[in-house]
């Protein structure tokens, strides 16, 4: 009989498939990567084609410090997830909050840069092609950082309420996949905008 | 032969110019191959449907459960790949020949600018500006004299399509394109805009007049003249120049030099108005000026709201613009 009916499904031994959460997050990351790719293509396509206005070389300043913040937040979130797996709740919370702080610092840095670009150099989204593509790309990324921070804050709240334990570590891993993705996107955006684009 | 089975002035199977001919030759080749594939595969389908249908008394017997066959599947992978290779080689040759054709020194240069919903034609070396009706010389295959069009757009995307003369090419703002044709027969060839460009896309018609060398030379000469000035038309010219007409229209040699609408210097040399939407008759001219929406609703020609006297005068003036 090939369609056997088992009273205990777990008894069909050894049948282990991937975790739904990780597969779903991988799917989301693939989809988001496609969106970012299109914005990056637009940015690269329009490099040097602005008719007027400030050029990248004239106005961009490489945000080394804030980039370091964001990238090290990937480290902190990684270790936070490991800490939770090892049931070290307080270490988890500390590293988690540090991640949030580093991410927020990055956003602050982006805000600072935009302020400088708009008020000192007159680079707005409508100034020229560079303005449009720059704000769209960096803005899209910042939006994703913000969304990530919101989710991190929710988890932090649960942790402060004492509800985060070892059993939640798989979900935290899924969330940290998203955070790593946001960082990876920044590596690409950084390279395209601040390295190649000048 | 195929071309005359369906009487139509825009039949892609009735080419009269090298690009259209090359396309037809390639397309017949493609049609032949696809026809063979169709006959073979649908024949097999028909055969299977007839031969392997359930017959009475078959109900309880299941046929042999065959899961696949490596040989057969390999064969029907390799054969399509070969067909694709052959088709591709034939096609690449034609793409290159048509698109990368060098422009010979005696070619006629025309700049076509697409507007919502009319065509502007400029002949830069001849100093001619006209609209909607293109005149080009016939090309003798022994000594070809092709016309090369540079395609530009003033607003949205358009597409220049005169099926019997060439395949279509789009007019896209900020993206100049090139199209050439060498019509081998005199006559009038019809076409229209093929890329949806807004409300009146359907009435952005094309009329290409292929002229013998003498007729073409005469046409060029006439177009190069400034506008005729005729005493009868003085009143109408005054109305024309004192209302909004000159904001959009040019009449060479007068104070009217608007560029938004068609050049009217030689309006009477055209068989149609409103880019083919109506015949060029005084009645239609009158209607077009006063109530353009009755001919081409939502075109960008505004209703001029002239009094009857002014309207008559302007039409009389237009009638003198030969």
């Amino acid at each position, binding site marked *: 009989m090939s369609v056997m009916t088992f009273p205990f*499904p777990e008894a069909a031994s050894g049948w282990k498939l991937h975790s739904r959460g990780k597969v779903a997050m991988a799917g989301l990351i693939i989809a988001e990567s496609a969106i970012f790719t299109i914005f990056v293509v637009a940015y690269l396509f329009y490099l040097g084609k602005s008719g007027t206005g400030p050029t990248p070389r004239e106005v961009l300043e490489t945000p080394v410090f804030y980039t370091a913040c964001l990238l090290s937040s990937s480290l902190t979130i990684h270790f936070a997830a490991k800490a939770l797996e090892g049931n070290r709740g307080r270490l988890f919370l500390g590293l988690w909050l540090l991640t949030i702080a580093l991410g927020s610092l990055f956003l602050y840095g982006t805000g600072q840069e935009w302020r400088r670009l708009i008020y000192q150099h007159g680079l707005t989204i409508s100034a020229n092609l560079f303005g449009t593509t720059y704000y769209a790309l960096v803005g899209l990324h910042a939006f994703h950082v913000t969304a990530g921070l919101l989710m991190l804050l929710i988890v932090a709240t649960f942790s402060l309420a004492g509800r985060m334990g070892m059993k939640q570590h798989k979900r935290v891993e899924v969330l940290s996949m998203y955070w790593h993705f946001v960082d990876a996107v920044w590596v690409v955006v950084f390279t395209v905008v601040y390295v190649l684009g000048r | 032969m195929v071309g005359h089975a369906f009487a139509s002035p825009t039949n892609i199977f009735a080419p009269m110019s090298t690009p259209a001919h090359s396309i037809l030759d390639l397309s017949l080749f493609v049609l032949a191959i696809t026809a063979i594939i169709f006959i073979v595969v649908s024949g097999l389908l028909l055969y299977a449907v007839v031969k392997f249908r359930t017959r009475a008394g078959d109900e309880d017997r*299941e046929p042999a459960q065959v899961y696949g066959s490596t040989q057969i599947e390999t064969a029907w992978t390799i054969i399509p790949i070969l067909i694709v290779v052959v088709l591709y080689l034939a096609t690449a040759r034609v793409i290159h020949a048509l698109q990368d054709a060098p422009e010979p020194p005696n070619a006629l240069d025309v700049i076509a600018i697409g507007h919502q919903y009319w065509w502007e034609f400029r002949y830069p070396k001849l100093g001619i500006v006209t609209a909607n009706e293109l005149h080009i010389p016939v090309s003798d295959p022994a000594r070809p004299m092709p016309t090369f069009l540079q395609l530009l757009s003033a607003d949205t995307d358009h597409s220049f399509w005169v099926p019997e003369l060439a395949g279509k090419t789009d007019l896209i703002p900020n993206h100049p394109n090139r199209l050439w044709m060498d019509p081998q027969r005199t006559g009038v060839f019809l076409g229209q805009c093929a890329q949806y460009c807004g409300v009146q*896309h359907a009435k952005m018609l094309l009329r290409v007049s292929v002229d013998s060398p003498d007729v073409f030379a005469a046409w060029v000469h006439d177009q190069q003249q400034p506008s005729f000035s005729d005493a009868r038309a003085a009143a109408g010219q005054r109305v024309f120049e004192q209302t909004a007409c000159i904001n959009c229209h040019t009449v060479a040699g007068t104070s009217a030099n608007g560029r938004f609408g068609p050049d009217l210097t030689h309006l009477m040399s055209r068989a149609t108005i409103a880019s083919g939407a109506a015949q060029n008759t005084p009645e239609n001219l009158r209607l077009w000026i006063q109530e353009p929406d009755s001919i081409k609703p939502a075109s960008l020609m505004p209703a001029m709201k002239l009094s009857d006297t002014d309207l008559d005068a302007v039409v009389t003036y237009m009638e003198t613009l030969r």
Partner: protein
Amino acid sequence: MSTNAMTIPAGNIEGRVWVDTLHQWLTTVDHKRLGLLYIAYSLLFLLVAGVEALVIRVQLMHSHNNLVSPQVFNRMFTMHGTTMIFFVIMPVLFGFGNYLVPLMIGARDMAFPRLNAFSFWLTALGGLLLYFSFLGGSGLYGAGNAPDVGWWAYAPLTARAFSPGHSSDYWTLALLVSGFGSIATGINIIATVLCMRCPGMELSRMPLLAWLYLVMSGLVLITITPLSAAQIMLLIDRYLGGHFFDAQAGGSAVLWMHFFWIFGHPEVYILIIPAFAFMSEIVPVFSRKPIFGYPVMVAATVAIGFVSMSVWAHHMFTVGMSSTSNSFFTITSMVIAVPTGIKIFNWLGTMWGGRIQFKTPMLFSIGFLFQFLIAGLTGIMQATAPFDWQLSLSYFVVAHFHYVIVGGIMFALFAAFYYWYPKMTGRMLSEKLGTWHFWLFVIGFHLTFDVMHVTGLLGMPRRIYTYEPGRGWDTLNLLVTIGAFLQGVAILVFVANLVISYFKGERAGNDPWDAWTLEWAVSSPPPAYNFATIPVVTSRRPLWDEKHPEDPDSRYE
């Protein structure tokens, strides 16, 4: 095998208040109910978009007709295309996928039931938003109306200068919203297929429908998203003063085209792959043989998925790309014909040597095979770029893609309806009405779309609200219109069949077609929990092995 072990007989449910039932349906997270919601939603929009098509056809019945103004006509063809693709075909395919995938892989539900519900409601909202445009606020020239920019919304026609008011924004936002719903469903299907299969169901033992929905969902992830990105860019242009597609600032109309077609071409494979899935389940059952060449069918579909990402600019052959680019897209567009053709041959191979039963699902399947073959061949004609310089933007293209979508996908969908309706409702659809539906539709379809090819060959461009007499298009267009009405009648017969059979149809039982995949092991309709105990499988056709223990598939795989 006893059904008792698979289902727990339902107890007596006392009569429900209608509000209760409505509430159940509105808050459901059950994949079967969501599937039915998607399908019902799509049928509603099918009728709406069908009426739009009939308006188009009556207007074009003869030259210089004036049933509708050009403004209305332009809205009609824009809404017809947008509705059919995003609010008819995609939802109905997601509906069938939702219903069938968990059942066929022996799971109780999708991986994320609540996300599933969210996706449906996002799609539903998108459709309502699009149609709200008819009522939406007025703008300049009364332009606060339904979008009229064509379903591709080419720049710069969508710039504020050329599309004042909000009509284009309804197009943009409706599709952005429903696009996110589609992406979520794609993620859900992938997670379900990869993580929820019952024990023993290796990927190589999955029904082809599950495989094909997996590939389709993967495509959704990387296909819908470029459209979303382009739409965000369009919104930035229209509302934040951006210049992505602003020619005056150096922006490129062609860039929009690239982004749109990078979505647009794989999108049509997203639409056709589930149709292939239906055929791969139905043709074997009504030929009484397993699918011919299962591994190659999977490989060909995956190949189609990949190659489909490389052909997009064959929609742009007239745009003025270099000869090298045109040649590249010619070859890729021809290459994709190879795995597609292979699939047709494999279905033929399945029928070959079989014992074909001409029930309604099979009638539509045979129609599919014949028409999809023709559609593929006219596709090859257009893949040859120079030929396309004549065919593109004409009614030949319109005929081609309707051949694929109506002659191919809709026929496969009708087959799927007749095949799985018994499972979903417990009643058989009437074979008599089904036969009427089939023949009326086939005749109408061919009258319309065979003749339509000719109008294109005679130079008739697309998207024109009227045409000149003397072009030779009048009689042909009249025939096309008559065929459209015939198809309309056939659809009404179909809808009547759906409704009448729900109340009066013959009771179906678990397995009316003597089929072989897991959904036929449970009752019709299935219980809410699908399977009382999760099955364990050892071959691709678990029920075949049950019914033929002397010759199980597991021996040959």
